[in-house]
């Protein structure tokens, strides 16, 4: 982080004083209070879902579980079976129920029916009943911590599929600047940022950082000036590559990482930059051995170790996910953060479904990233692992390049050398133009794994 940026953060922190929490009672609740909350909510949720959800009735009955068996959180952990997105899709297809058997209120009471991103397949429906205040309160805690205060502006280059996300700054007394998440918007974004001087940005992505680098090269825009007003820029979608990170630092971007938390909530870094906080009054989170097949062998990983995130909705009586296996590999801790918050934190590593085992060695996209970015022609870090199955004999990569390299064969060899040096596995490399890979994804990311 640049000196100028650090000075701005310190200044901002000083401005904030002790005023760090949006909802201090819940954000700093003791672990015993959170445990009591979990017990209360989980023991309410289990019979509620069983009575209303055909999916859970079938799924739990097949596992020989009835709500009367669940009297403690330990019972919940030891008896309630896991579920995942494939199970929802299977129920949907088998029973002709578009909600996968999870809807727990009459359809007529819904406000909106939105959908998941569809990153890992067909999007699944997300039915919602909007309360007054919408989704603002949980996000408000995160953005309050990131420095948003009444009267501020918040830049929101986003999508519509999550609904009217642009309204959340109002909960903080702040005003949204609304943009599309499209590189074509960047000149206008830069212009309006200089006019309104927003303090926060939600969200920044790898393709946006790449487009900013191109904008810097092709125009006289001063990106240090553009980003000088921000106390936070929320980065999401993918890991942050080394080159992209270096550019962000050069431009003085105060980046904070953000991720989904098992489709139940969101996870944001706080100003300590020591993991992403999840809100444990919104979700009950477990981190288990990734190879677990059911509650019987689902050993929780040790605090601070890597496992698969399993999430249960505590805040949804509409469409609760219960013991939902996220497929996300995270390092997970419930240790109190230096910020004073007591809720769990995680560090995202990748998707379990993205992992390939090559000659006994685990390889995730994040392992390949730096090696691809290291070469000038592939500095954008656009690549896919070709994953025909989890266990493969050869690591196959599809890598995007910029410009018009004179010798693609030689470039493929250099990439293979770089990956072999970084990962310990020599890949087969297929080269395609960056623009072709960018066409494969929504504007904020590309699929990092392809079946062919």
């Amino acid at each position, binding site marked *: 982080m640049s000196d100028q940026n650090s000075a701005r953060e310190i200044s901002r922190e000083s401005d904030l004083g002790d005023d760090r929490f*949006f*909802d201090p*009672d*819940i954000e700093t609740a003791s672990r015993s209070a959170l445990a009591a909350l979990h017990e209360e909510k989980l023991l309410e949720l289990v019979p509620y879902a069983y009575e209303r959800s055909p999916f859970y009735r079938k799924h739990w009955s097949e596992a020989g579980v009835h709500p009367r068996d669940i009297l403690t959180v330990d019972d919940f952990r030891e008896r309630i079976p896991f579920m995942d997105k494939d199970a929802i899709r299977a129920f949907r297809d088998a029973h002709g129920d*578009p909600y996968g058997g999870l809807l727990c209120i009459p359809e*007529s009471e*819904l*406000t*909106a*029916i*939105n*959908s998941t991103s*569809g990153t890992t397949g*067909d*999007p699944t*429906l997300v039915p919602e009943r909007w309360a007054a205040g919408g989704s603002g*309160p949980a996000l*408000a*805690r995160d953005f*309050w911590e990131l420095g948003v205060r*009444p*009267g501020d*502006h918040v830049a*929101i*280059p*986003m*999508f*519509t*599929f*999550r*609904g*009217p*996300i*642009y*309204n959340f700054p*109002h*909960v*903080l*007394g*702040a*005003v*949204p*600047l*609304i*943009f*599309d*998440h499209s590189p074509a*918007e960047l000149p*206008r974004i830069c212009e*309006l940022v200089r*006019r*309104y001087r927003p303090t926060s940005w939600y969200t920044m992505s790898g393709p946006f950082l790449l487009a900013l680098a191109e904008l810097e090269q092709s125009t006289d825009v001063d990106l240090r000036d553009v980003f000088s007003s921000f106390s936070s820029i929320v980065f999401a979608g993918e890991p942050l590559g080394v080159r992209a990170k270096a550019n962000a630092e050069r431009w003085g971007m105060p980046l904070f990482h953000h991720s989904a938390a098992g489709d139940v909530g969101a996870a944001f870094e706080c100003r300590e930059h020591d993991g992403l906080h999840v809100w444990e009054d919104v979700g009950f989170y477990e981190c288990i051995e990734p190879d677990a097949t059911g509650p019987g062998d689902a050993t929780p990983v040790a605090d601070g170790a890597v496992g698969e995130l399993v999430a249960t909705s505590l805040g949804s009586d509409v469409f609760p996910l219960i013991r939902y296996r996220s497929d996300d590999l995270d390092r997970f801790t419930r240790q109190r953060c230096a910020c004073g918050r007591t809720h769990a934190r995680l560090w995202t590593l990748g998707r379990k479904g993205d992992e390939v085992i090559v000659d006994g060695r685990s390889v995730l996209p994040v392992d390949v990233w730096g090696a691809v970015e290291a070469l000038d022609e592939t500095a954008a870090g656009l690549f896919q692992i070709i994953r025909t199955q989890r266990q493969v004999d050869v690591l196959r990569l599809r890598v995007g390049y910029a410009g018009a390299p004179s010798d693609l064969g030689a470039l493929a060899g250099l990439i293979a050398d770089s990956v072999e040096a970084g990962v310990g596995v020599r890949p087969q490399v297929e080269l395609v133009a960056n623009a072709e890979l960018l066409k494969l*994804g*929504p*504007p904020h990311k590309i699929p990092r794994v392809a079946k062919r």
Partner: protein
Amino acid sequence: MARTIAPPELWGVGQFRVGAGSVTWELSQAEIMRDAQSATGVLSAIGLAPGGRVLVTSLLSEAPHVWPLTLGVLMNGAQLSSADATPFDAYRTAMFLRTLRYDMALGVSDAVVDGLEQMGVDLATAFADVAVIVARGVAYDRLESAGLRPTRMLLLGPATAIARAPGGPAEVDPELWALDTVDGQVVVTSLTERRQAFARQPTGVAGTVDGSRVILARGSS
């Protein structure tokens, strides 16, 4: 206790398009609510009823136009779904149309139609069960060519114009906007108090006006 903070008077800062360019647009909470009341009446007039369901396709940057329409959907007692009006996100539009029953598709644009056609989706089949298809730009003509009966929608600078029946001209709420033409281009003037007042604001739309209705010039969409 969570903090309770009054929402700002300024709802947000967005934009509207004029030809290939855009104009920055500040809107107050009060005018959003006024536009939402107007949208509620328009959506009801074109057939939205309590218990209905609407698929809204838009870009986030169109929120100053779309949020009042969204509130109008809710104030009519209907449900909504959202998809981006981009070729890429057309798979989401296709998924919604395949999975759920919709009474109205609102804001279907060229980009959405492009995306659906790239996916090999037959427009007539995809929208066959949607009673009211509110379309803009060339998408209107393409849906009509597919044998559908779309309702015309125009983003007319800061104003939203929607026809009251399939085949009819798009019209603005005459209590909110006055229309005129300058050199063959429709211009709009705001009639109510707005954070940002508009006087004969160019819209980039070629045509003539008949009161609050826009008669598009031949070849214009």
